[in-house]
């Protein structure tokens, strides 16, 4: 999405940067940190275990080959990836993939079913935005099913606003403040 006027006038942030360790609502110790290529096996395992009922617009893909191609693309150059770790497992993943013009990215976030509704998604989302802002991204957009009220209200709480409600999917956008800026 490349029209600057569809982004909110007001910038949001600063957001937290990784690594962050916290106890989720189930008492599990979760660490959110930047993705490392060594995490690839654990990340693939998360998507192989992912319930396909939670897919959105064809992602995550379902077969091993498609998961591999997709992860190659979204962990490539200029992308931003953070993972939520529990023990040795990746249980959540959030990603920014560059879009036109420079400084713009599309966002996606996935949390493994057994780890949903525990506060992990909110922390993962905020930390991804802090990481993205630190890496120079200024505008982030996403699309979400229009019936997915819990997700839409989470995105709104963080600072996303509806940018395109005309199409099948509900599009939302956020403008990121400089990470060093004071929010007063």
């Amino acid at each position: 999405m490349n029209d600057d006027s569809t982004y909110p006038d007001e910038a949001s942030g600063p957001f937290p940067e990784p690594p962050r360790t916290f106890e989720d609502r189930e008492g599990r110790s979760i660490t959110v940190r930047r993705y490392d290529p060594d995490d690839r096996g654990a990340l693939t395992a998360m998507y192989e275990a992912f319930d396909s009922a939670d897919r959105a617009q064809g992602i995550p893909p379902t077969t091993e080959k498609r998961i591999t191609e997709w992860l190659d693309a979204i962990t490539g150059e200029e992308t931003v990836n953070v993972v939520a770790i529990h023990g040795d497992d990746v249980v959540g993943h959030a990603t920014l993939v560059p879009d036109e013009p420079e400084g713009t990215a599309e966002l996606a976030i996935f949390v493994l079913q057994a780890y949903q509704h525990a506060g992990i998604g909110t922390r993962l989302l905020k930390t991804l935005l802090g990481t993205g802002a630190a890496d120079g991204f200024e505008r982030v957009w996403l699309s979400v099913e229009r019936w997915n009220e819990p997700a839409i209200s989470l995105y709104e709480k963080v600072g996303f606003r509806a940018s395109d409600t005309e199409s099948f999917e509900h599009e939302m956008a956020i403008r990121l403040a400089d990470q060093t800026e004071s929010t007063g």
Partner: protein
Amino acid sequence: MKLLLGIGGSDDSIRALERTVARVAETGDDLTVAILRNPATEADPEGIERRVQDVLDDAGMRATVRHLDGDPGSRLVELAEGDGYDRIVLGGGETSPMGKIKLGGIAEFVLLNSHISVTLVR
């Protein structure tokens, strides 16, 4: 089977054209290509028609080529229903940088309004 392929010049519509022509070469279905005015693309109708002819020529195929002016989705459904087509074929959408499938505006209208079966080519 009488097929009506709608093409507005977007990448996915060009892909749908190539795949449909290849398929029709095997099945012998009766193909009509309707060139639409897709407001989301800057492709000119004559350029699309040349592209259509190239793809048909390469496959050694013939098809009726028509131009539909006005609102693309409604005109396509009108033609399909009025002229006894069995199936409408359209591009299945573009993908976002993330890899998410985004359905185009024409496909959305046709899916919700057509009483005839619709194929989206992925």
